């Protein structure tokens, strides 16, 4: 579904992503993990086109995603939903309006139709009763669930998550991960940048480990966690799993 070929991105002299290639098939749940600054978020943003690619290319269903081909590029991008670390809900709009704005203006749905879809997805993330609230009246976990519902309202073929739980209080993390897990069960293709190793291990079917902009290791998630091949991944895993002994 998505193919990334030798993508590189640098900011000034810093190589954030360095010649990374990967492939995501329909129904895959792929987790990008690695230390801070390893380039995983940048890579995800390159896939969506939030960052321009300096070198390499991204293909969707075998077709090049080319910013110069504006109409097609737009259509390709609209097939991907994106969830941010900091939610980025519109604070001047209610939860329901957050979910209907793009539906009405981009997909040209009628208000009734947009609201019906929005309520359906808000129900799915368990926030139907918050439809008339403003984002600032919600907890972090609720905000992120609204953000997920808002993205789903656009009926994307795949969802990209950029550290969706990193800005949350610890007790809010589970409710968001549960929503994502359900989404995966229903067959949504997902690419998730995360520090939640439990999620990567048990929900993802594939893990990509990045370090300093390079794709160091890639594999089946269970295999990666039980038996990492590279020294760098072993070292990383030994540090993220706190062992009191």
């Amino acid at each position, binding site marked *: 579904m998505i193919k990334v070929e030798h993508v590189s991105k640098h900011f000034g002299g810093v190589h954030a992503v360095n010649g990374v290639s990967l492939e995501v098939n329909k129904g895959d749940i792929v987790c990008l993990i690695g230390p801070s600054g390893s380039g995983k978020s940048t890579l995800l943003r390159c896939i969506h086109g939030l960052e321009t690619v300096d070198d390499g290319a991204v293909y969707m269903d075998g077709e090049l995603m080319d910013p110069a081909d504006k109409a097609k590029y737009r259509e390709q991008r609209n097939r991907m939903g994106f969830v941010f670390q900091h939610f980025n809900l519109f*604070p001047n*709009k209610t939860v329901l309006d957050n979910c209907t704005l793009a539906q009405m203006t981009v997909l040209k749905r009628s208000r009734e139709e947009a609201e019906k879809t929005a309520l359906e997805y808000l129900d799915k993330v368990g926030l139907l009763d918050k439809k008339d609230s403003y984002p600032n009246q919600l907890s972090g976990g609720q905000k992120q669930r609204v953000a997920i519902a*808002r*993205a789903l309202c656009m009926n994307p073929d795949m969802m990209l998550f950029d550290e969706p739980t990193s800005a949350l209080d610890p007790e809010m993390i589970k409710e968001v991960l549960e929503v994502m897990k359900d989404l995966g069960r229903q067959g949504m293709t997902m690419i998730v940048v995360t520090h939640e190793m439990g999620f990567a291990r048990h929900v993802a079917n594939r893990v990509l480990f990045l370090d300093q902009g390079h794709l160091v290791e890639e594999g089946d998630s269970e295999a990666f966690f039980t038996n990492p091949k590279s020294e760098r991944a072993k070292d990383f895993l030994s540090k993220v799993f706190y062992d009191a002994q």
Partner: protein
Amino acid sequence: MWETFLSPDNLTYMLKGAGASLALALGALIFGVMIGVVMAAMKLSKSKVLNVIGSVYVEILRGTPMLLQVLFFYLGVPVLYQMIAGTRLRVDPYVVGLIAMSLNSGAYQTELIRSGIQGVDKGQWEACETLGISYVTMMKEVILPQAFKRIIPPMVSEFITLIKDSSLISCIGAAELLYTAQVLGAKYYNYLDPLIIAGCMYLVMTVTISFIARKIEKRMAVSD
């Protein structure tokens, strides 16, 4: 002496002047917002040419005295017009005053609006981008409503500044508040009382506006 100035005729005359000042300030504020939105859009656009036009406008209007600008439009532009068109241009001091004040205020409001827009979290732009929302919809529905909320307090001080600056229009003979005070002062050979009355009228306008603005701000803070 006070009775003279507070007589119905003279008081009405000055109140009319105050009304003119308020109308000029309000007009300049509104036209200034329009100019400001356009110029801010130019300064924020990717086009170098538009950036330069926006910057030059702001620098000239903010970098020269407003009194000079008023005189330029009242005394300078007709000369320019005669040189080009060959005929005399009759200018109305109110219209010229409004144009000069709007252009001047527009320059200040350009900067207010630009910084208000830039102050909106970058994540809001990105969220719109990932949802496929067009630039115009994004500006109208997401960015400007948030920007304007931040802009309101400095916009109110701009309005108050405009009420005070409208007194500069007196120099070209528009009967705004200060002008009426000067006329009455000359008429009765006493400038003290009319100037004090005019001062009080300016104060009533500016203090009332600040008061209302604070109320609005409080109400908006609640809806957040």
